[in-house]
């Protein structure tokens, strides 16, 4: 589904990614881990076609996202950190706006809202929602066009355990429907619970990649230990 081949990305004199090789299979839930500034956002920008690799190649569903950004973004749903809804619009207006941008019907927006259990929020102003409700609505907005790939950036950051559990259930549900999920998170328990494979980035370089169980077996008793050991060693 996603392939990054020897990708290096520089912004002026700053190197955000160095020689990154990554292959994410269709239907896989893939975790992207790393401290702030590790290159997670740059990876998303490359995958979404918002940035062009300085060196190397990026392919999403066989397409070059920089050249075919429109086609790639039609297959992608994105939930960015904080949900990023329009606070002055109602939930329904937020969904209708994006339904129009993706060229799908109001019915699809309604179905997405029902699927995310947020249809009771339809007429509420987005600015008045709790964080958990915002995330559910943001997820509904991201899937209303039936994307094959979903990028989730810190989806449960700041949520209480109940809301986190509910969101995990929704994410698993999407995964069971065959959606490829790229999850960027700082929450190791979340990554371990949801992801088939994990890639750890440090200062733009991949320092480890594999199943959470394999990383734990090799680098520490828990994924957190493995993360600290790997990113600490890289520093």
């Amino acid at each position, binding site marked *: 589904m996603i392939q990054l081949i020897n990708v290096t990305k520089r912004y002026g004199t700053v190197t955000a990614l160095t020689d990154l090789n990554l292959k994410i299979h269709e239907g896989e839930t893939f975790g992207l881990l790393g401290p702030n500034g590790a290159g997670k956002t740059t990876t998303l920008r490359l995958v*979404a076609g*918002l940035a062009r690799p300085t060196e190397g190649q990026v392919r999403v569903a066989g397409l070059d996202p920089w050249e075919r950004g*429109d086609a790639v973004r039609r297959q992608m749903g994105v939930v960015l950190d904080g949900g990023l809804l*329009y606070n*002055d*619009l109602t939930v329904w207006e937020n969904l*209708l*706006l994006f339904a129009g941008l993706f060229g799908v019907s109001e019915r699809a927006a309604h179905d997405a809202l029902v699927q995310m259990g947020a249809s009771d929020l339809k007429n509420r102003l987005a600015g008045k929602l709790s964080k958990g409700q915002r995330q559910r609505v943001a997820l509904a907005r991201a899937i209303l066009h039936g994307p094959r790939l979903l990028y989730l950036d810190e989806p449960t950051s700041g949520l209480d355990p109940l809301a986190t559990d509910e969101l995990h259930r929704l994410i698993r549900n999407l995964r069971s429907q065959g959606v490829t999920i790229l999850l960027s998170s700082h929450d190791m328990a979340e990554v371990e619970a949801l992801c088939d494979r994990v890639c750890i980035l440090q200062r733009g370089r991949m320092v480890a990649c594999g199943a959470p169980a394999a990383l734990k077996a090799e680098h520490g008793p828990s994924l957190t230990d493995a993360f600290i050991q790997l990113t600490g060693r890289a520093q």
Partner: protein
Amino acid sequence: MRFFSLVRGELWALKRNRRILMFVVMMLGMAAIYALDAQDSATFLPVVLIVSIYAGVWQMTVNSLVEEKERRTLEALLVTPARPLEIIGAKAFTGIAFAVLLCALLLLVFRQPPEAPLVLLLGVGLAIGFATASGALIGIVARDLRTSSLYRTPVLALLVGGTVIPWQESGWAIAEVMRWLPTRPVQELIWGGWTGAPVPLAQYTAVMLAYTALLLAVGARILRQQATSG
């Protein structure tokens, strides 16, 4: 389709924007006070219209674009098939529609029919075009509301100052500078349209179009640079 969805989104946000509502009420109130003095309406009308157009269109175009950057909702839009030009275009279109509506209301408040309506329309149209182009440019360049104010406030002061200050009575150098400000030609056109007095139509139109085209070209170039430097 995408463009109309974006415009619809702008209109939804507009109907809940209390700042804009306050601005409209304030401008209509100001116009109503000036309209009481029928003799001097030719002096006040261009000023009220120009201030309304610049401040109104800029509030719509600049604020809406910069707020999207500040709240990061622009990032959510950019990962959809919407293109940056469509996003800016939708905001500019809404700003233009708002300015046209506000100008119509202001003219209704002044009650008298203009002597040369086409000249008045030309002046209003050129002012709206310039305000939209400059608003889009500031919106593209500014990172947040603070930096947008840094760009916008001195320019607005200069433009409004160029309209309300009786610069003709100043020294030669000041008068020459003021003569070439983008407010001056539209002010004269609106004044000429209202009173029926002759104004150099072709010259003023050419000056305003040149300003607008220059701003659009600079804005498009910066936007292209931002898009391709990703």
